[in-house]
């Protein structure tokens, strides 16, 4: 009974607002790749926050204020799902930017502990990330870092919304993105 009462407000916030959950433990993803191309070329591919065509999972991207802080982009995935993100930091000199997820569509609905749970397309909550390029002579190193919580903000998560699911999903996106970026930049 007690659990159900706690549960409602948590769910209401889960996909809309950030920074609401400190019960679960924050997780991290940290991937990097060395690309045999100059940093300027690599940065040229990713520098437009509103252009995520280099990320294989994304079908198209819309953006409202370009590379301005606060700019909102909506990623439409190959399967039709959407992820809305807000630009938090942008530093052209450092060839880096940071963003957070503000909203996501539901990938599927499951039943857990007698309740319906909406699993977001990326099974995470309160997600922030940054990506940057660093010159290493004629080559470059791209680092993509994310910090987030599992999608289920209450205790005892279902398998689809636990830490393993979150970590795997984010790592898969980062790895696929960086591998494709390497392919594009080394062409």
């Amino acid at each position: 009974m007690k659990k159900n009462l706690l549960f409602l407000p948590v769910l209401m916030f889960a996909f809309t607002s950030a920074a609401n959950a400190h019960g679960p433990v924050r997780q991290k993803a940290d991937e990097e790749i060395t690309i045999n191309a100059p940093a300027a070329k690599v940065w040229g591919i990713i520098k437009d926050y509103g252009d995520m065509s280099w990320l294989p999972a994304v079908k198209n991207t819309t953006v409202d204020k370009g590379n301005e802080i606060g700019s909102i982009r909506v990623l439409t995935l190959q399967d039709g799902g959407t992820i809305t993100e807000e630009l938090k930091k942008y530093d052209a000199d450092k060839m880096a930017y940071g963003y957070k997820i503000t909203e996501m569509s539901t990938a599927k609905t499951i039943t857990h502990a007698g309740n319906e749970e909406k699993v977001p397309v990326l099974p995470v909550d309160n997600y922030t990330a940054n990506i940057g390029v660093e010159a290493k002579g004629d080559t470059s190193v791209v680092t993509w870092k994310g910090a987030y919580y599992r999608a289920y903000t209450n205790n005892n998560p279902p398998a689809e919304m636990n830490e393993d699911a979150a970590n795997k999903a984010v790592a898969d996106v980062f790895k696929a993105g960086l591998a494709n970026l390497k392919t594009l930049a080394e062409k």
Partner: protein
Amino acid sequence: MLRLKRIPVTLAVVTVLGCGASVAAPFAYISNQLDDSVSIIDAEKRTVIDTVKLAGKPAGIAVAPAGDKVYVSTPEAHGFSVLDTKSHSVLNKVIVSEGALGIAVDHEGQRIYVADWYNNTVSVVSAKTLEVTKVVTVGESPSGLIVSPDNRWLYVANRGSDSVSKVSTETLTVKKTTTVGKHPFGIITTQSGDRLYTANVESDDVTVLDTASMQPIASIKVGILPYAVTLALNDSRLLVTNQTDNTVSVIDTETFKQIAVIEVGEKPEGISTHPDDRHVYVANWFDSTVSVLDAKTLTVVDTIKAGEGTRAFGQFFSK
């Protein structure tokens, strides 16, 4: 020269230890949440001297005034662990409640206060018996806790209610609750206890409260997602970790102006002041490091590698 200087120091330490007195000072206790461990940093040498395994995703830290024990909140173990600072072993695991996070100890070392994220309560635990003696209902998702220097009040940051509660440690009831900025998390009081500062995660600012009246005096803009606060140089400088900016804001507490922004590691969280009142340690969660800042020169003077996911939420120095 250096060698000559060192000999007497070493002798003195050995003598003290031999007498069974408390361990020579000061140490920083850093919770490594993703590693399930606590790094013990010798703040003289600025090196990790030991890493103690401690299950339950350790987060909050409170050091007993005598320096003999450290209380480490373990949210996934629903309580806290008691770490012995001499043997570096876990003496007890105490189950308190489902979402134990913020933790503080009173200045007499008699009580441990544990905030519960889910239940909107603060549990009062006897340091002697390690039993919960009272549960105080506060605002939503209480997080940061601090005991006033005179031991009469416990202040609680109610993150979900955007407020701070002032709890009488005598009656263990809420005397007053005041609205601050959005989502207050870490809090600190001055040495005299006249003021309280809150880091407001969602409104990117710090609220300054007059503790007697519990009225806000000022609101100061800082960086993005401020997490925790500490004071240095006789309370003249307030230092704030900005999680998303990877910086620490330094505020002049006379003028309430930000006078410096110091770059630290990624996702800075816990922050505490060395007993010398000048150096400030910052746990960088993403980098798993601790930055050592000099509040006087406003620079980073050292970076110490700790365990995965350094969190160190609370007062983590032994005196």
